[in-house]
Each structure stands twice: as structure tokens, then as C-alpha cells.
């Protein structure tokens, strides 16, 4: 078999494989939607006045914008400004409401991270034809489209959870990261740089969701981060492979890049 023919065969077989994977993609989202259909009852039942306080315009400060490394405090929303003491006291007095508000804040932040990832992949796909990154191999383009689609589904899932819990959809990119990421994207000049930026976003998402597994209270919110974090980590593995690195470098997921649940500014 000539090399050309061998590659043609490879393409055909891999295309068939991709069709199978597309079917799997379509099959998994309805399952998640079904799971979410009952979402919200546990959170609604725990609504407290703290959620109204926190949702009444308390603007969070102290979020590091200069770097993508996250603050290591999921309860930052109780620690800022002069109103922090009362908010914290409310949380203590009404643990159920505090839990619900914390879960909603985390879900909003997660939607914002997914929106940011969609924005980044979409921007990359739109900029690629101009030659901004040099030649973009087909496999990289396929990955970018696949990852973008999956992040869009993840954002829908997190937002569905928010709406069912009595909140509002969060449709903007993470407010704390959007600026730095845009600057980093603008400065990109080649494909490895793009892959590394995407890797940073994937690691941030995985680590945020993993950290929340020890913090979220509702089973529904836990189910979301549990089923999504592994997929983000597979995106990261792909990107590591793309830049030539070993795809499973860590024995345990780190959390140094995890974003605080307060990132989206929602409670």
C-alpha cells in the first residue's frame, strides 16, 4: 500500500469513528437534561434572605486579574467589603440558604468559565484563516470545533441548573478572566501559544469543578461538576498531546488554578 493510500484509508476509518463519537455526543446531553429536569427543588427549598442580600448588588473586590491563578476561597463572597460580616453571619444562621446561595454562585461561575472557553475557541477558529497562528492542521481544527461544542453544552447545563434553581442564566465570560484572556489571545502568534492558552482554560475549569466537589451541597450541582470535569481534563490531555507533551502528567488533579465561586458575582 502506498503512503498516500494508507493515509486515505486512515482518514476514512477515522471519519467513521468520528461519526460514532458524534452520536455519543448527542446521546449524552439528553441524559443530562433529564437529570436536570428535577433540579432546583432542593435549592429552591433552601432559599434565604442571604441570597437576596448577596444578590442585591454586592460587588466583589480583591479578585486577582493580573494572573489566571485563582483565589483559594470559595466563600470569598462573605469576606469582602464592609458588608462581609453581616453576610457571613447570615450564612451561619441559615446554613441551608447559605448552601443554596453558594451552590448557585458556583454554578454561575462555572457557566462563565464555559462561556469563556467557547469565546476563546470561537475566536481562534475565526482568526485561523487569516494566518494569525500559521498553518492550522486539520486535527487541531477538529479538536477546536469539538471542544467548543462540548463547552457550549456544558454552559447550557450549568445555566439550566441555575434557572431551575430560581436564578438567571449567566451568558457572559468569567468577568475576572475575560480581560486577561483577551489580552493573551491578542498577543498570540503561533499554534503552540494558542494550545497553551486553551490548556490553561481547560485546567482552570477542571480544577474549579474538582474543588467544588468538596464544597457543593446539592446532589444536582455535584452531578454536574462530576460529569463535566473529566471531559475538560480530556480536552487538556488532547492539548498536551498537540504540543508534544505527555497527556497525563499529574497523578492527582491540582487546584492551584481553581477559580472562587464568587468569580461571576452571583449568589
Amino acid at each position, binding site marked *: 500500500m502506498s503512503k498516500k493510500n*494508507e*493515509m486515505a*484509508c*486512515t482518514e476514512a*476509518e*477515522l*471519519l467513521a469513528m*468520528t461519526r460514532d*463519537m458524534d452520536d*455519543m455526543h448527542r446521546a*449524552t446531553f439528553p*441524559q*443530562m437534561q433529564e437529570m436536570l429536569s428535577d433540579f432546583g427543588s432542593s435549592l429552591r427549598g433552601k432559599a434565604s434572605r442571604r441570597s437576596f442580600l448577596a444578590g442585591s448588588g454586592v460587588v466583589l473586590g480583591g479578585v486577582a486579574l493580573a494572573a489566571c491563578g485563582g483565589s*483559594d476561597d470559595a466563600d470569598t463572597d462573605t469576606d469582602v467589603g464592609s458588608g462581609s460580616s453581616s453576610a457571613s453571619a447570615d450564612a*451561619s444562621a441559615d446554613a441551608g440558604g447559605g448552601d443554596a446561595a453558594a451552590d448557585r454562585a458556583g454554578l454561575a461561575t462555572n457557566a462563565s468559565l464555559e462561556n469563556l472557553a467557547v469565546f476563546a475557541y470561537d475566536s481562534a477558529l475565526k482568526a485561523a484563516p487569516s494566518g494569525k497562528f500559521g498553518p492550522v*492542521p*486539520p*486535527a487541531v*481544527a*477538529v*479538536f477546536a470545533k*469539538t*471542544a467548543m461544542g*462540548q463547552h457550549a*453544552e456544558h454552559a447550557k447545563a450549568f445555566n439550566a441548573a441555575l434557572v431551575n434553581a430560581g436564578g438567571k442564566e449567566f451568558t457572559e465570560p468569567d468577568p475576572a478572566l475575560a480581560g486577561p484572556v483577551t489580552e493573551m489571545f491578542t498577543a498570540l502568534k503561533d499554534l503552540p501559544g494558542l494550545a497553551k492558552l486553551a490548556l490553561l482554560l481547560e485546567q482552570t475549569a*477542571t480544577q474549579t*469543578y*474538582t474543588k467544588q*466537589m*468538596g*464544597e457543593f451541597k446539592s*446532589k444536582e450541582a*455535584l452531578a454536574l461538576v*462530576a*460529569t*463535566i*470535569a*473529566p*471531559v*475538560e*481534563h*480530556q480536552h*487538556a*490531555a*488532547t492539548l498536551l*498531546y*498537540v504540543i*508534544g*507533551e*505527555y*497527556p*497525563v*502528567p*499529574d*497523578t*492527582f*488533579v*491540582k*487546584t*492551584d488554578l481553581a477559580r472562587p465561586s464568587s468569580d461571576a458575582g452571583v449568589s
Partner: protein
Amino acid sequence: MELRLDEARFAELMEESQDLHSDAMRSCSEPLNRIVEAGQERRAASDYDEQLHHELAETRRRAVTKSLAGAGLAVGTFAAFVAATASPAFAQDGGKDIDIDALQTAVSLELLAVETYKTALTLDYVKANKTITAFAQTTMMQHAEHGKAFNAKAVALGGKEQTMTNPKYTPVVTGMVPALKKGGPLDVVKLAITLEDVATSTYVKNIAENVTDPETRFLFGTVASVESQHLGTLNAVKALLEANAPQFITVKATGGAVDLAKLPGPAGAAFVPETFKKTDLASPPEEGAVA
């Protein structure tokens, strides 16, 4: 049939994979720091009774840390720190049993994975591929660390260490060994895919539905996504083998970065076949519990 651990061979393989594994081992400090902080934060916000337990846990943590330092282990193992930061208060409540069961079942899956990769590393066609060999060695080591961490947590919650491989899947793996010896890389990759999927699915379901202790959920979370990367990598390897394109199974450390320009387009999606991790293959918490 029980698969027994060949400790001498295991130690030899550990040495061989040291370079590739060094980064992974360094990463252990992050989750252990997180667990230390989680325990401290939670107890700091709780009532007097939990404060008392916190003090006891801190005393135990300091004792273990001192012991490790005395033994010359500046960083220590993830498992030791998991034990040191366990919450005694939690071990007294009703969620203990299912959490311990889930941890012991997880250990049984990790031990079976270690045995399976160890067996794979004896196969000539695995030894012939530098990248697949490195993957098997590194993955085996990572599963061993996961097993230690789960066992440490089970013991800290009042349970026993699990030392046996998973009772459901061990006979399956053992029964496949003769066929693996006669087969090729694709056969062992498919087996590994199944085991990695079972582990990932089990831990995801434990986080979502079964485990009650937040620190235990977090531990499952730090491991589940790593298993998912094993699974994704194996899916990609399987796709490339099935497409008769093994030349793309390579990384810098084992023969050079992949030639992206020649990599077939669909391979870009091979790592991520699911948008949400399904849990159809999840083992129930009691499947590998110690009687």
C-alpha cells in the same frame, strides 16, 4: 483467581518510569494541601465538638508529618496526608459505611488496574512500542498512588485496608490473559479502556450520588479526572491503531512530538468521545468492600 503483586518486578518498573513520573509525583503536594486546608476551614467554622475533633486531627497530622520528616520524606505521600487530615467527626455519622465501602471498592479497582498494566508490560508487542510502554508504566504507577490514597482515607474513616483486586472484574481480566498473549496491542488497549471507564464512571457516580463526606468526594474528584485522561488517551491510541496509523502514537519524551500536519483530522476528537461522562459502567459502592 487472585492476581498477586510481584513486588520485585513492580519496584523495577517504578525505577524505569521514574523520569516520566516525576512531574506526576510532584503534583501530589497540591491536592494534599487542598485537603489540609479543607479540613482546617471546615472545622474552623463548626461548633465546639468539631473543634475538639479538629484538634485531635491536627495532632495526628503533626505526628504523621513529623514521622515522615524523620524518615527523610520531605514531601511525603498523598496517602499519608489523606490519613492525617481525615475528619474523625464524620467517621461517627451514618455516611461512614457507604463512604468506606466506596473507598474500598475504588482500591479494588486500582489494584486490578495495577495488575493489568503489569501484565501488559510483559507482552512483547507492548514492549515493542516505546510510547505505549511508557504509558503503561506511568499509568500503573498512578493507579498505585490512587489505591494508596483511597486506602488511607478508608482507614482514616474507621475501615480496613483493601488489599484484593476487584472481585467482579478480576476473573474477567484473568480469563483474557491467554488471548492477550496471542493477540496484539489493540486487544490490551481495549481491555484497558474498559477498566479505565469502569474506574472513571464509578468515581463520578460516587461524587454525584453516593459519597457523603466532602473530603472523600474531593478525593474522588482529584482521581476521577486523571482516570478520564487515561481513558481519553487510550481511546485515541485505539483509534490510531484501528486506522493503521501507529506512527502518531508518540510524545516528545518517547520519540518526538506528533507530526500535527500529517495527523488525520478526526484524530483531534478521539480523546473526548463524551460531552458528559456517562456512568453506565459504574461499580456499586459495595462491590469491592472488605467484608
